[in-house]
């Protein structure tokens, strides 16, 4: 515990309501609450509280109130409380400040400055409850033209003449983004896999391998990652999946690698990652066989060779300054999917300085990439997966209108599983049983139930998307893709509208 820090959260326990059941004590992973039999009373160590709210929601009498600590230094908009506390932590340890989940700083959230269209009078809206509405999406390279051969006289034979590339079909344009077994618990990982399978979409293994016992059942719902550490990557793993993703970067920490600390490398994780138990799993910052677009191409085709050209290969990058040119290079290198992870993408652990300051907002990056690929006539060569800060179905719609084929959701899925964005994932003490390898905590998740919650989320969003599409008078998600006519900007400057490629509201 640090010497001179204000507690982050204040705890209030209503003594009249408290029945001393000690639920809060058992639920807390940081030992905040404790019981003293002598006065028969509950006490707490406020400074250990991370504000996860687990105790508050489990308290049977609603006796607990956890709020941001009201103590304030003298108000100062430059040297605010967070800055001061971080300085003190570093003065004490000399360490790099770590954090979890996504960027929480007030950068402009463009989703909230984009509005969607609806039909009025001049074209009819569609009611998705009574009319077919297509959300099915295909991820992968598309041919330049589609040549169809059929015999008009006997009418039956319809054949596609053009050469097709491997594509993966998903029932809704929402995919679970990369979260590795190791960063999250087995239960959380399994929940994602089960929900993806149940709903007909995909989950992403991250860089932690795919447990052997899950390959047969969930391989066909898995995007497997090949990242700089090459953890858990062998030919069987690659061939078990439905798509492969080369991870170059991540929105929460562009340009840096990752360290899964040795204490989290338990026996099962070690086997799945194919490393010895207890050693740090170090993912280098770059992939050392990729120093250029040509090298990237070499790995893309190595993976295609290793899987007999049967699976689409995705390349995931963080949204950074020259993202459009980089994406063009990636497509030219042979990628079938380009995944772009924006400034607000989440993580299990990242240096705060990087999470909060490096990268650009997804909305701008996505629009720029889509525009560039169209201009170059190669947009059909890849699908675009947009990731980083997709919070609701409307964000999905807006992302698709800006050019995404589908979106990755990470944080939203975690919240569906119980996460409250306490940002302490890197401590391994997630009270919700998500970002932890402590069996006492991880067993709090029951994959049967949690996967149902995730599937419910996908169902709810998909329905909302259909409603919004219907309102626009569109009956297939295809027709919204890159269709900026259905977007208008509010309170945006000229340059922002320009990058997004949308008109201002009323124009």
């Amino acid at each position, binding site marked *: 515990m640090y010497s001179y820090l204000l507690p982050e959260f204040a705890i209030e326990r209503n003594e009249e309501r408290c029945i001393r059941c000690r639920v809060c004590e058992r639920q807390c992973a940081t030992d905040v609450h404790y019981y003293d039999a002598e006065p028969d009373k509950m006490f707490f160590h406020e400074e250990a509280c991370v504000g996860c709210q687990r105790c508050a929601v489990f308290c049977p009498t609603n006796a607990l109130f956890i709020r941001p600590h009201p103590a304030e230094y003298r108000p100062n908009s430059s040297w605010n409380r967070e800055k001061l506390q971080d300085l003190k*932590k*570093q003065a*004490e*340890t*000399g*360490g*790099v*400040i*770590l954090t979890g989940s996504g960027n929480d700083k007030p950068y402009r959230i463009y989703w909230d400055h984009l509005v969607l269209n609806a039909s009025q009078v001049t074209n009819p809206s569609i009611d998705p409850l009574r009319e077919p509405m297509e959300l099915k999406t295909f991820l992968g390279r598309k041919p*330049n*033209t589609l040549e169809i051969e059929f015999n008009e006289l006997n009418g039956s034979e319809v054949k596609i003449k053009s050469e097709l590339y491997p594509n993966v079909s998903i029932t809704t344009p929402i995919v679970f983004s990369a979260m590795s077994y190791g960063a999250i618990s087995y239960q959380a990982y399994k929940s994602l896999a089960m929900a993806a399978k149940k709903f007909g979409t995909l989950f992403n293994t991250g860089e932690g391998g795919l447990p052997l016992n899950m390959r047969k059942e969930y391989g066909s719902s898995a995007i497997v990652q090949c990242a700089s*550490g*090459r953890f858990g*990557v*062998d*030919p*069987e793993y*690659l*061939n078990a999946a439905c798509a492969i993703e080369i991870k170059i970067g991540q929105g929460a920490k562009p340009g840096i690698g990752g*360290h899964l*600390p*040795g204490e989290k490398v338990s026996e099962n994780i*070690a*086997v799945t990652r*194919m*490393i*010895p138990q*207890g*050693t*740090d799993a*170090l993912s*280098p910052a770059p992939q*050392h*066989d990729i120093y250029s677009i040509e090298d990237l*191409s*070499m790995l893309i*085709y*190595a993976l295609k*060779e*290793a*899987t*007999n050209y049967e699976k689409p290969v995705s390349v995931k990058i963080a949204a950074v300054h020259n993202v459009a040119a980089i994406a063009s290079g990636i*497509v*030219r290198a*042979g990628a079938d999917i380009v995944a772009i992870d924006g400034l607000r993408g989440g993580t299990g652990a990242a240096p705060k300085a990087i999470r909060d300051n490096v990268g650009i907002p997804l909305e701008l990056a996505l629009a720029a990439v889509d525009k560039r690929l169209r*201009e*170059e*006539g*190669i947009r059909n*060569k890849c699908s675009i997966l947009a990731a980083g800060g997709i919070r609701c179905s409307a964000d999905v719609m807006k992302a698709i209108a800006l050019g995404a084929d589908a979106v990755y959701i990470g944080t939203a899925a975690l919240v569906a599983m119980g996460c409250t964005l306490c940002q302490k994932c*890197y*401590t391994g003490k997630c009270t919700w049983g998500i970002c932890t390898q402590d069996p006492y905590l991880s067993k709090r998740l029951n994959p049967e139930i949690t996967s149902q919650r995730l599937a419910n989320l996908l169902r709810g969003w998909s329905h909302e998307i259909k409603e919004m599409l219907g309102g626009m008078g569109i009956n297939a998600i295809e027709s919204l893709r890159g269709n900026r006519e259905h977007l208008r900007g509010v309170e945006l400057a000229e340059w922002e509208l320009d990058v997004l490629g949308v008109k201002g509201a009323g124009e």
Partner: protein
Amino acid sequence: MNNLNVKFGLRNMFLDGVRPVSELVQHVNTNGSNAYIDALGLKHKELNDLLRETALKGVTSITVQNVFGQRYIGTRLYLPNLAKKMEIKIAPNPGNDLGAFLNGHRLIVYGNAQDGAGNTMDDGEIIIHGRAGDIVAMSMRGGKIFIRDNVGYRAAIHMKEYTGKVPALVIGGTAQDFFGEYMAGGRVILLGLNLSKNERHKAHYIGTGMHGGVIYLRGRVEEYQLGKEVGIRALDSHDWEIVGQYVSEFSSHFGFDPAEILQEKFQKLLPVSTRPYGKIYAY
């Protein structure tokens, strides 16, 4: 070419103009379980298509001649149902990523290999009668690689091992910088046979970030050539057993005298910690 691209073309370096296997039959000559492939004029994918086809026909020994830079030889041979692993002889110069993700086959090169030989190799053997380029054995997790001469930069980077699956890399010559960087497991033996008396090994930053595995180094190396995450130890009897075994295997491939090689001084490089970066964070 994509005739719809008005402003820019998209040239597919790998797939443009690839001919179907049916048009390439004259390149293959099969004789029972043996086959001969003439790689002259074949594109990367065409050669690998032929290798896979040939393997699926039950051929277990293939000689590939006139290889000039074709990549990924051995990569497309993930065939779990194959009764027997294959042996492929390659001459003279296979291209990048020779044996990438290799699944238990044996590749013998009579000539030099380029970059990425044994990249993320899973199992099998690669024997190179010549030199190899950069990042040899990157992330290799099983099997053996023997290289007669020198290797380029970042050899053995991030090799790893687990539960008894221990990869081995034996290099007859010397290596360039960042040798054994990030090593997490496996055994690497650097023999320096082509260095003259008292000549140092070439590499700097040897074992930077190393946190597992072991490097046995024959010949001279100065302390300043090593990364700060490695320590030097003397070999114990168990180490000599390991070194002896691999050196004799190496010698039998390339016709050296193992006793002569083993006469010279060896040093053992080990990581000082399995957690080199455990202490840099403030929680």
